[in-house]
């Protein structure tokens, strides 16, 4: 082996490891020069805010990716949670706490059902969660016969729904914390950061997280090492469902109504962020830090391009292109083409 070859291998190693981070900073530097006002606290907060809900969903789906599964139902869990929150407050006239608890319960129950379908009924993960996605998209429309939920709406039986979104609930979407500058950081960004740190710590530093990675890498070996593999898989889907419902709560709080048409892009954006995360630091596997970076990466790119007057309809194309590049980073360059 010549030293040149070794140096080349080392360079490649570095490219895989730091390529995406370098790309992210390069992007920020470029926009800082090219787009006026890109480097400001407000702009940074806006980026985080724009990816907060997607990011929360992406962190949840990361848990299922870790155990070698997948959850396609997260988008519809989020919108179902949003509709449920609106229904509980506007139609049932309950307070914010009841609404939040109802949403979290929905997320947990859907996660349990997903896990049960996949682990006990042996339905392949993609198909089970695809089915669940359809089911929820339909289910969330049934109570109001397909209408959006807002205060003053007419119910199917002719009565008028008089409940309102509680102030405490709306604060989840609208309150901003002071951070050096008054009224800077929205609640959704704080939720994103807290959840990101939580799931990162859980996956990296607890024995449960470690075993989830083992299950994802070699299920049989994990079982023969004494792990209750089925329970771990079901828990992963519960985590995913609960995170998605938190995303739904944030969405409802931001909109202030149960909007039947919103949240269409949540699934794809979240999955993209989690998959981009594979490429971060050369992990070549699902990881919470990568997922968070992936979400921010997409946010930076879209914010920068928007400020440079790129038309809105190019956004999905750009996200897709980033995802494809990230996947090439992960699978081709690192030579670990297995999941």
């Amino acid at each position, binding site marked *: 082996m010549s030293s040149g070859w070794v140096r080349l291998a080392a360079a490649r190693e570095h490219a895989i490891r730091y390529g995406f981070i370098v790309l992210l900073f390069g992007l920020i530097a470029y926009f800082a020069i090219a787009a006026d006002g890109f480097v400001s606290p407000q702009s940074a907060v806006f980026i985080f805010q724009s990816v907060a809900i997607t990011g929360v969903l992406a962190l949840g789906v990361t848990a299922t990716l870790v155990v070698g599964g997948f959850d396609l139902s997260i988008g519809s869990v989020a919108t179902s949670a949003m509709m449920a929150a609106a229904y509980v407050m506007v139609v049932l006239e309950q307070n914010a706490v009841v609404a939040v608890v109802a949403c979290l319960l929905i997320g947990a129950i859907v996660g349990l059902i997903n896990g049960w379908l996949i682990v006990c009924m042996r339905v392949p993960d993609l198909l089970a969660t695809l089915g669940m996605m359809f089911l929820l998209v339909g289910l969330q429309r049934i109570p109001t016969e397909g209408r959006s939920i807002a205060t003053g709406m007419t119910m199917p039986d002719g009565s008028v729904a008089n409940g309102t979104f509680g102030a405490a609930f709306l604060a989840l979407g609208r309150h901003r914390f002071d951070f050096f500058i008054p009224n800077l950081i929205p609640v959704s960004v704080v939720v994103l950061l807290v959840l990101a740190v939580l799931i990162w710590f859980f996956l990296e530093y607890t024995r449960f997280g*470690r*075993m989830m990675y083992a299950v*994802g890498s070699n299920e049989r070996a994990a*079982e023969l090492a004494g792990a*209750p593999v089925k329970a771990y898989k079901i828990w992963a889907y519960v985590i995913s469902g609960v995170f998605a419902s938190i995303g739904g709560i944030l969405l409802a709080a931001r909109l202030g109504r149960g909007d039947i048409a919103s949240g269409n892009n949540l699934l794809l954006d979240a999955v993209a962020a989690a998959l981009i995360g594979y490429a971060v630091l050369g992990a070549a596997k699902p990881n919470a830090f990568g997922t968070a970076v992936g979400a921010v990466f997409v946010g930076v790119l879209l914010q920068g391009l928007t400020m440079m007057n790129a038309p809105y309809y190019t956004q999905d194309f750009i996200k897709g292109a980033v995802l494809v590049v990230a996947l090439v980073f992960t699978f081709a360059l690192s030579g670990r083409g297995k999941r």
Partner: protein
Amino acid sequence: MGNDAVFRVDGLRKSFGPIEVLGGVSLDLHAGQVTVLMGANGAGKSTLVKIISGVYERGGGTMSLAGQNFAPKTPAEAIRAGVVTVHQNINDGVVADLDVATNLTLDRLSGSGAPTLFNPGRVRREAKAVADRMGLMIDLKARISDLSLADRQMVAIARAMAHRPKVLILDEPTSSLSSAEADRLFALLDRLREQGVAILYISHRMSDIRRLADRIVSMRDGVVSGVFDSKPLDYEGAVNAMLGRKIHLDRIVARNSARPVLTIDGLRIAEGSGPISLTLGDGEVVAITGLVGVGKTALAETLFGVRKPLSGTMVLNGKAYAPGSTGEAIAAGVFLVAKDRSENGIVGDFNIQENISLPFHRRMSRLGVLNRRVERAIARRQIGELGIVCRSEKDEMSALSGGNQQKVMVARWTSQAARLFILDEPFQGVDISARRDIAAKLRASANGRATLLFVTELDEALETADRILVMSEQTIVGEHRNADIDLERLLAEVAGGPLHSAA
């Protein structure tokens, strides 16, 4: 015999990297004869078959078919020349979603000269001709996925025979068949034998071999270690040639144990098999040997809580032991180094340290948070204890040699004290020096637990165990103290005397 060989292999060699798998194999196959090929795992049987069937390129030597040079570059070429192989995995030989008729004629649907349009009538006619020639009594319209394994196997063989081959190679065709199903397969093979096909039959099942063999060729360590073709066939000799002892230098001093750790009483692990009763003592190393498929892994998995016994009781440390899961077994101090480490042991995404700590996370955590310092310290200690060759405990498993990977698996389970330590084929794919290291480590650390090994190779048992038990047909058929062994009796038990060949 000898001159009328249809197919002849001479001095065949094959290496993968620096490892020589075949070291000059010579083999004759004769028309209208069943030649049985025996060999332990890693003896080179499958490599030989893959070269003959055109999957691998040979490293040296010659092959000839009916006097002509035979050097297939692809499986398709081998089939066209008249050498057809039915592989071990039945479902590789058939397409489950198509019907029997289409499967029987599948090879005519592709390739040059095949008609573009699919003509069901013609397919059925051709399929019927093939089926009649073979005496196959299966509904041609049935879908393969609705058939039993035996019927699928028949279809796979019939499909192979549609090429009218001169040589048919069967790789462990009965490994997933019941004995009644196997009888139907044998009747089919008798028919093919009468038609003058030269058959190479690879199997570990003595009952199959007794039923079918005209000749037996034993392989060991990449060479032919014995050819038996005079009637009556010397089955024990064939087993001895395949497994028997080479000169072995370091004899061990067999120990006895007074304090029982595990007592098994009347354990039955398969439908219709005899009960197993045995006692394992503290400080004792016991090896259970027997051919592939006699239930060694099933017994290991029963002890480890992977599967449940049909009947019988186990007592561990004086308490009733009936593990419902691997987790319960580990909690009770029963550890298993499973066989086939890449499949059942190694977590590929984890480094050495993480692989070693895998079963014992709970013991190195507080409030669920792993203590990585403790984890690393244990990994380093174990790397030193077993002499694992690596740069650090952070190395990827894929960077290690087979022997070192196996040492990591042993290090995993010796990192905590066991009451019963089970190792299933721990020397598979392990080089000789790593094997010695592992065996020495097992004997040196044997006190305080019972150690149970499952090995196919006799040498491995003789080198490591105080006591050797022989398994055949899902039960224990013999026991030997490793001091003055009656090797002939032991081999006869492994080969399964007429008493045990009821299947």
